[in-house]
Each structure stands twice: as C-alpha cells, then as structure tokens.
C-alpha cells in the first residue's frame, strides 16, 4: 500500500510535539499508518469511532478534562460531522484540531471520492473554519503547531487537509 510511512511519521511526531494525547479516528486508507502509530503508542489514547461526529463530542470532553486531542478522518467523515462541529465545537468554543485526508482532489482515481473532494473546501469556508493544505513534509511540523496554536487561542475548530502529495507515494 503506497501510503507514505515516512510522512505519516512526521505528522504523528508533530502531533506528539504539540502535546496531543487523544486521537479519535475512523480507518481510512490514507490514515492507516497514523492510526497504527496511535495504537502502538502507550501514551496515546486512541478512540476508534463508529461515525466521525462522535469525535467532536469526545474531543469536547477531552478539552474539558484538560487533554489536547485531534480528530483524524477522511473528508467524507468531516462532512458527516458538520452538525457536531457547528452545534458543539463552534457553539461552545471548543478548540478542535482536525486532520482531514483530502480525497477526491487532484490525482484521485476513485470515482466515488470525487464529489466529496469538490465540496470539502467550500464547506470549510462557509463554516468559517481556517484551514491549510498540507503537502510539503518539511512544513508539516510548523503547520500542525500553528494550527494547534490557533485552535487553542481562538477556541474554535481548525482544519488541516492532508493532500495526495503528502500521503501517497506512487
């Protein structure tokens, strides 16, 4: 499976370096290594979800408990979480770091991913969620640190879209 182990490790290390101790996730091809890294790390609470929206609640609870968390999901999982993000994270000002695999964008071969790819950025924009595309492994650590900083200071959701360039090795 040509998902980049090296870049997954860079992402995982960056999450650890900003103090993330809880990771909620739903398996998705591009995220397999990240989920496994969370699983193998005794200091990481990995919460495997049935539906991504649950992760908004889990992250809210973690935040109240003083624990930094990240939601790891595909962009279709983000779409499935929209109400939770609006009516919990935004309404109650929960810092919410979201790492979203950006399927259905340039280079996507799976036809079923393409509609979600089209709507991801417009929906993030309409919700007023700041986001960056993560493509360059050299910038991952800085981008994750800055996203986490903004989520904490603004007390709002912040998204990082994991692109094909970063996650996939053809």
């Amino acid at each position: 499976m040509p998902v980049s182990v090296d870049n997954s490790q860079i992402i995982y290390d960056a999450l650890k370096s900003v103090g993330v101790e809880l990771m909620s996730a739903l398996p998705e091809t591009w995220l397999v290594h990240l989920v496994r890294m969370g699983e193998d790390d005794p200091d990481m609470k990995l919460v495997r979800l049935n539906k991504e929206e649950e992760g908004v609640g889990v992250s809210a609870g973690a935040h109240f408990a003083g624990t930094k968390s990240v939601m790891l999901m595909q962009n279709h999982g983000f779409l499935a979480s929209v109400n939770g993000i609006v009516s919990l994270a935004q309404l109650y000002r929960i810092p919410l770091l979201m790492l979203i695999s950006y399927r259905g964008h340039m280079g996507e071969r799976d036809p079923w991913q393409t509609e979600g790819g089209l709507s991801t950025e417009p929906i993030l924009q309409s919700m007023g969620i700041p986001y960056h595309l993560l493509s360059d492994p050299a910038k991952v650590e800085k981008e994750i640190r800055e996203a986490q900083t903004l989520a904490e200071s603004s007390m709002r959701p912040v998204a990082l879209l994991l692109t094909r360039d970063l996650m996939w090795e053809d």
Partner: protein
Amino acid sequence: MKRADALEAIYDDLKTKLVVTNMGAVAVELYNLGHQPGFFYMEHSMGLASSAGLGLALCLPGRKIVVLDGDASVLMNLGTLSTMARYSPHNLTHVIFDNESLLSVGGFPSATSTGTNLALVAKGAGVKNTGLYSDIEGFQGAYDEAANRDELSVLVAKVKAVGPTSFAMDIGLLENRFEFARHIKDLRSE
C-alpha cells in the same frame, strides 16, 4: 415515573459527580433542582452528550462521570453505545431517560415507542451492566449500584412524557461551559 422525580432521587449523588446532560427537558429539570459547577448542559448537538462523557471518562480516570441522556438523542447516535462498550470506561454511568417521545419539540413519538429497547441495544453493543427501570425505587437502586460500581453502566429509565412548564435557565451556554471547565481544572489541581 416522572423524570423530574427520578432526577431528584439521585440528585444528592449527582452533586458530587461530573454530569453532562443532553438538550431540553433533562437539562432544565436538573438545573431546577440546583445548579452545580460540575453540571454541563449540552444544549444542542443531539446525540453527542454521551460522546463527550466518553471523552471526559477516558481523560479523567479518577473521576466518575454521569451522562443524563434521552431516548431520541441516543437514537440519533446509536453508534455511541458501541463505542462506549468498546472502551468501557470504568468511571462512566450513562442514564437514558426514555419517554418514547421528542417531547421538547412537540411530543412526536420516538422509535422506542414502537419497540426499540435501548437497554437491549446497549447489551447487544457489548455493555455488561444495563437495565430498564420503570419505577423510582428500581431506578434509584440501579443508579446507586452503578455509582459504586467500577464499570461502565447504561441505565434506561422509562419515564412519562411530561416536562417542565418553562425551559428558561438563568445561565448562558458559554458561562456554563467555562464554569464547567474551570471546575474540572480546580479538581485536577487539588
């Protein structure tokens, strides 16, 4: 049994816990018994009170967390029972007040009115300690056991479809949220 009476029966214990409620009547009725800094009323995002309780329970293993939920909210996020069972936090009690109705929005019947048994759903999801109670004594006894048990419990209390006469609460959403977070911070620094 009336939900307000069931809440009153367990209120003394709830005061000592971290409590997350779902939206609507449950929140108001708990608030009317006397607000505590450890009570968080999740006034939207139906279905996620239990998920927030799970996050709290996993991150605060030394504290008992109680979620006060409703049938329609749980039906909206049935997967939560399976996720809770998967991690089975020893310090989480999930109470579901089942009035078989979306009472706060006009009283339309929920799917528990046509046969869905949430205690059996929880059991099937893998929760060991579950039960369905239709009188105060039974519910209170089950709650006391759950409160003293070092294991996940999901208790379904069958209640009448009656709610408070007013939904007014003199506490802002963010006021409640920040007070709750501050309270936990203070507890952690004790």
